[in-house]
């Protein structure tokens, strides 16, 4: 209760132009937003850019945020839209050198040789199309509910469930192809 009120007063102060209050908001949410961006964009430099931009844009548009709604959902929506634009831009303007991918490329030998199962998962996530990757990141990194994910991505809740299910199937398949054997449960 105290925490929520605290956030509300931070936001009110930010709206009133107290930039230090907004600085505190950034401190509280920067890791979550960065994680979202890194998950979507798979590239640290871009994720850093967009995280910065997201907080600038959120501040500029703070008057559009309705205080009775959940702030994190709204903030994540801003970040998600910026990521989408960056992905679209990146498609249209590829650079010569490949971006600084988090996992050093899609070389299967690298994955199989390494016993690190985390790297196998990360490489498979790299290869997932964004329409599957985005809901998975919001679920497994940001730990949002289906309803919140649906709001952030502007999609029906049913679609989110399907995408998460199919996204995981795609991951499993992709990892199997690289020699990772998947044992039930999740």
């Amino acid at each position, binding site marked *: 209760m105290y925490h929520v009120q605290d956030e509300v007063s931070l936001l009110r102060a930010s709206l009133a132009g107290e*930039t*230090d209050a*907004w*600085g*505190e908001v*950034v*401190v509280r949410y920067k*890791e979550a937003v*960065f*994680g979202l961006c*890194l*998950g979507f964009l798979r590239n*640290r430099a871009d*994720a*850093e*850019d967009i995280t*910065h931009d997201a*907080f*600038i*844009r*959120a*501040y500029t*548009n703070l008057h559009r*945020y309705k205080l009775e709604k959940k702030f994190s959902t*709204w903030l994540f*929506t*801003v970040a998600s*839209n*910026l990521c*989408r*634009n960056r992905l679209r*831009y990146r*498609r*249209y*303007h590829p*650079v*010569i050198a490949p971006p600084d991918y*988090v996992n050093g490329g899609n070389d299967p030998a690298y994955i*199989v040789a390494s*016993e690190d*199962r*985390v790297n*196998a*998962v*990360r490489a498979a*996530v790299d290869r997932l199309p964004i329409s599957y990757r985005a809901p*998975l*990141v919001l679920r*497994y*990194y940001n730990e949002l509910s289906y309803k919140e994910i649906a709001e952030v991505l502007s999609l029906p809740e049913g679609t989110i469930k399907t995408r998460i299910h199919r996204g*995981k199937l795609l*991951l*499993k398949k992709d*990892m199997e192809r690289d*020699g990772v*054997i*998947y*044992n039930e*449960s*999740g």
Partner: protein
Amino acid sequence: MRVDNLDQALSEALHQEVREEAYCIDRLEERVVAEIEGRTPRRGVVDSLRRMLAPTRGARIGQFATIGVTAVVFLTLGMFLASRVTPSHQATLTPVTASAVDGQNQVLFVMPAPGAHSVSVVGNFNGWEATPLADENGDGIWTANISLPDGRYEYAFVVDGRWWGQDPLADGYVHSFGEYNSVRYVGQAGGGA
């Protein structure tokens, strides 16, 4: 290699990535506040310039030529647009405005071609038959405003009979008959909160 629980592995992998890379958002709050308070220039301008000079999807051999040409075209374009845009507008280079009339968009085609006698645009919106551009004030920048419904369009410019397939203002390029066509999506819903 076995993965026992994908949910757990996924969550672990994503969290570990963030831990490894999060050093770059150290003191992000200071940079954000500095920008808001106007102490640093808008990041966007420098980044936009950097991106604009990035090479296009040219063939390897012609890549430097493409970079050079693109840079020249952009500088010319920049000067042209700068003379049109008032200082209060942040230059977002999207030369498409939705018109209120029946969902048609006014799409601006621009081709810097000083000294050219005729410039036209051909594309799948006009059956690949030439729609002429005009250079009214003789400054070498040829333009045409074409009304198009929302959709995906492929096109190229023809300058004195020569085809130019890589419009710097395009959203992307595709190969066609061994050369390039420019691609534009008209009517994109904008991003933003």
